[in-house]
């Protein structure tokens, strides 16, 4: 009874709790002496956050109207508003769920990779980062998004720097410089918008951009704002050619941090870009007249190929996956770019307002699918690193024989990455190709197809290394990963297959969000 009333009282405040809970957890973790206690706090917080995100998404999906939460009950233009709609609800759940699933894995991995003293610090930074990511996605305020972007970024720099390799520091430093440049560009962009419209609230900016655009002088400023914000966020999401910080950061960060960042951090930035393009600028400008779709499509395709090539030649498994991440971000952004283009009437039977845009659906679905698959892949490497202390090809040769369950899960996630039918990756590819056909860009269908062949090569290469090479000295001695690592790993691996067969959880929600996003602006 009292539990019920408590829940009822809490429910309206769920959006803010999504931020407060991890922030508070971070604070607690900072003061812990023992890494295990800090880990336990993180575990509880992560699960709680995931549950809240799940609850929020369910509410949205059942009511269909966005949840607006006014902080301190201040009205929108003055106060900060948190807004959860289909899109943000979906991305929130993806990030929170990935974070929660990998927490059981973290304890042993962190205990092995990070000095005893620094372990609570790691968990504190992780929770701070989680709070930041949640904040980016949930906020309805452009400047607040910047603040959360910086919170998550600062925490990320520390997470990377905690890596055991001495180059971790350089990687963190580079990321810091680049991250700051990105954030600066973004803040210049929204600064311009503030000057133009006098508000920082996304929805208000959107509604006031129309008059600004009518004036040719102010139109130039709007374009500049778009350019700055677009490039700033693109840097954060590692869009080619602004991706160069990513391989080092992913390679030298602690294993769990890599898995977490690969699964979530770029996704939050992608969310922010979609938000800016479709619900801020897209409302009053028709996006297809802007250069953004073309730039996005060209850069995405370049990423799909060039980063994949780099992955093929890589001899460090983590770095290989990092390059693959850049390529996969290319897939997501290609979907977003395609969604900006008009759908050819001849290719679909219904009007765009009622059918979800396939390109956007592909992009959103791949946010979830890629998060799951890449997290699984990096966790598998984390387990290998835990056992043999290296992820170089020469050291992991033949390790499939001694760690079959780990490498089997790796293989399944790898199949997903290639877009094998029956896995989640295929679903993304299917919608992406449909999106390309819808816009009449048949050539892109072939580029998608060709780039998945390159991913086949790099996954094939590592598969061959781990299963058929003579085991290295370290691999021959290795034992199967502990259960606490195998369980999260296999949850993600099985999800890769499950989401390839039952797409209700991903495609239906993504299509719903795509309908609201793309349908709304046409």
């Amino acid at each position, binding site marked *: 009874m009292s539990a019920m009333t408590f829940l009822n009282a809490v429910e309206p405040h769920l959006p803010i709790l999504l931020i407060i809970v991890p922030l508070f957890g971070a604070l607690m973790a900072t003061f812990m002496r023992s890494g295990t206690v800090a880990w336990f706090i993180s575990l509880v917080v992560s699960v709680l956050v995931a549950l809240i995100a799940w609850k929020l998404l369910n509410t949205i999906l059942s009511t269909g109207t966005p949840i607006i939460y006014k902080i301190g009950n201040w009205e929108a233009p003055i106060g900060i508003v948190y807004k959860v709609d289909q899109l943000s609800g979906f991305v929130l759940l993806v990030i929170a769920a990935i974070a929660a699933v990998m927490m059981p894995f973290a304890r042993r991995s962190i205990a092995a990779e990070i000095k005893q003293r620094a372990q609570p610090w790691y968990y504190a930074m992780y929770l701070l980062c989680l709070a930041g990511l949640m904040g980016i996605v949930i906020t309805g305020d452009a400047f607040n998004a910047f603040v959360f972007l910086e919170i998550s970024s600062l925490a990320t720099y520390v997470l990377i720097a905690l890596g055991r390799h001495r180059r971790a520091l350089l990687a963190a430093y580079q990321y810091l410089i680049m991250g700051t440049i990105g954030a600066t*560009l973004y803040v210049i962009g929204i600064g311009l918008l503030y000057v133009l419209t006098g508000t920082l609230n996304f929805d208000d900016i959107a509604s006031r951009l129309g008059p600004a655009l009518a004036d040719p002088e102010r139109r130039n400023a709007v374009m500049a704002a778009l350019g700055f914000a677009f490039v700033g966020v693109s840097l954060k999401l590692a869009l080619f*050619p602004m991706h160069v*910080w990513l391989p080092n950061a992913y390679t030298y960060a602690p294993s769990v941090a890599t898995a977490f960042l690969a699964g979530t951090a770029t996704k939050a930035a992608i969310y922010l870009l979609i938000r800016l393009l479709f619900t801020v600028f897209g409302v009053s400008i028709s996006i297809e007249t802007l250069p953004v779709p*073309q730039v996005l499509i060209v850069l995405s395709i370049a990423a799909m190929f060039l980063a994949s*090539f780099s992955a093929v030649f890589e001899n460090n498994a983590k770095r290989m996956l990092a390059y693959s991440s850049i390529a996969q971000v290319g897939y997501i952004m290609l979907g977003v770019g395609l969604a900006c283009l008009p759908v050819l009437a001849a290719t679909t039977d219904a009007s765009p307002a009622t059918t979800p845009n396939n390109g956007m659906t592909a992009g959103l679905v791949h946010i979830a699918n890629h998060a799951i698959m890449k997290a699984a892949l990096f966790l598998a490497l984390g387990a290998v690193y835990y056992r043999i202390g290296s992820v170089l090809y020469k050291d992991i040769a033949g390790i499939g024989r001694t760690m079959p369950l780990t490498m089997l899960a790796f293989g399944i996630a790898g199949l997903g990455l290639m877009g*094998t039918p029956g896995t989640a990756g295929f679903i993304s590819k299917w919608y992406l190709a449909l999106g390309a056909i819808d816009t009449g860009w048949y050539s892109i269908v072939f580029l998608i197809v*060709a780039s998945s062949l390159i991913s086949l090569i790099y996954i094939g290469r590592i598969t061959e290394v781990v299963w*058929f090479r003579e085991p290295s000295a370290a691999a021959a001695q290795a034992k199967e990963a502990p259960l606490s690592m195998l369980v999260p790993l296999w949850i993600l691996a099985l999800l890769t297959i499950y989401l390839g067969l039952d797409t209700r959880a991903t495609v239906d929600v993504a299509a719903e969000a795509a309908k609201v996003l793309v349908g709304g602006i046409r």
Partner: protein
Amino acid sequence: MTNELNPGLIVILGALLVPFLPGRVLRGAFMLMIPIAAFAYLRTLPMGDFGQMELMGLQLQTLRIDKLSTVFGTIFLIATLLGVIYALHLGDWVQHTAGLIYAGSAIGAVFAGDFVTLFFFWELTAISSVFLIWASGTANALSAGLRYLVIQVGSGVILLAGVLMHYRATGTLTFGAMSTETLPGTLILIAFGIKCAFPLLHNWLANAYPAATVTGTVILSVFTTKLAVYTLARGYAGTEILIPIGVTMALFTVIYALLENDLRRVLAYSLIGQLGLMVAGIGIGSDLAINGAVAHAACGILYFALLFMAIGAVLHRTGTAHASKLGGLAKSMPLTATFAVIGALAAAAVPFFAGFISKALILSAAMKAGHFWAWAGLLAAGAAVVIHTAIKVPYFAFFAKAQGEPGTEAPANMLLAMGLTAALCIGLGVYPEALYSMLPREVKYQPYTTEHIITQLQLVCFAALAFVLALRFGLFPATTRATLLDSDWFYRVPGRHLAMIANRFRSFTWEVVADGIVKGASKTYHALYHHHGPDGLFGRTWPTGMMAFWTTVTLGAVVILSYL
């Protein structure tokens, strides 16, 4: 619900359990049960379309039972059983599992009623089968496997592109007769053609099959190409272009099969030649021709499996399958030699062996349809098979002067598999009705007329005479260890250079591209950078600066484009 499951899935699910079974005996018994259980299940299924399900809002029909799918499914299951028996001595669960998943996915593809299900199993055959190549563990196998994988999955993605366009254009996913008039139809034909080893698209087969493990080659020889024959028979029956394609396949492979030294490669080329016969049959498209193509696929599966098994046994015992290193093994491996000869007689289409009853259908169909040149070409290729497969393979392995160590007789399980396959080769030859009654089209055909027996014997014996005389007078081309250039040259040699360029591109791209742009277009950047940092620091932080530079370039591009 019980009759909604694709039989291929039974095999795949069974395969997934294999790694968890302890002990070779239990594992072996279980693996034998898999195809038997799937076959028993298949027998209970009535004709019709089942397994309707919805995925991503698409209506799928995952199980289609008709005469065409049943005959292929049945022969695939028989071949699976034979392959399992042949591999029973192996302790390697990776190969067992991969082989069964591969077989199961080929069976699943045959019973698929729609393109998405077909594509699912199509890709699965590619991915599972590559393990059979990699498992042999040689450096050659690793690269051949990767090339094989790329080409096979490439066929799948071309299929996917075609299917997507077909779906967008027609709104249906049902896999039925296709047209080559449209782009999707052409794409799908190319996808099928890659797996069917069409000329110039064929080299994956000749490279990969000989690189696989002893048992892997046997399994590989059964499924991929015959699955493609099935898809062609269903989708492209009567497509005229297939006739010249098929005849070309039948003829050009003769040259390679005659010259090759590696007997498994000889068989691989010979297999492509026989595929040509089937493809031409499908192109002719009459009821008799389609029946012929299907029957020849079934018989070809059996006798090529038998020949690959025999040469595999030789490889297993002596460590080589090169003609120039073998010979005289009939004394030490008499049973294997006997089975090889039976396979050879079937391949030569000698009356009362399997090849005879199926090849006759296709040649008769070509004749009745008035395709004179196709008929003559296929007849010539059929005569040449006598030399390069039926005589050359057993002769150099078992009867020629010994060039290497004598082996010992093959393991019992291999002998059993070969014995059963040989029995089937003879059984179908003696009692063709067993196969004819299963064929998809309703046609009466009597292969055993005096005329037919005599003319076929003439063809075979005179071909053999030509071989003997050519050998006698030193005209037979010497088979030595060598590489024969084939269409893979086009991607292997220029491809390697491209890869080197790509590799160089990858390591120097930033330096080269950046240098070019920096020196040319943006001297300011250089000047500024030199201004702000000493040279030592410049070297160390260059990458970060480079990143910032590219960000600027992108920003500039976006802003400038916005103003255009």
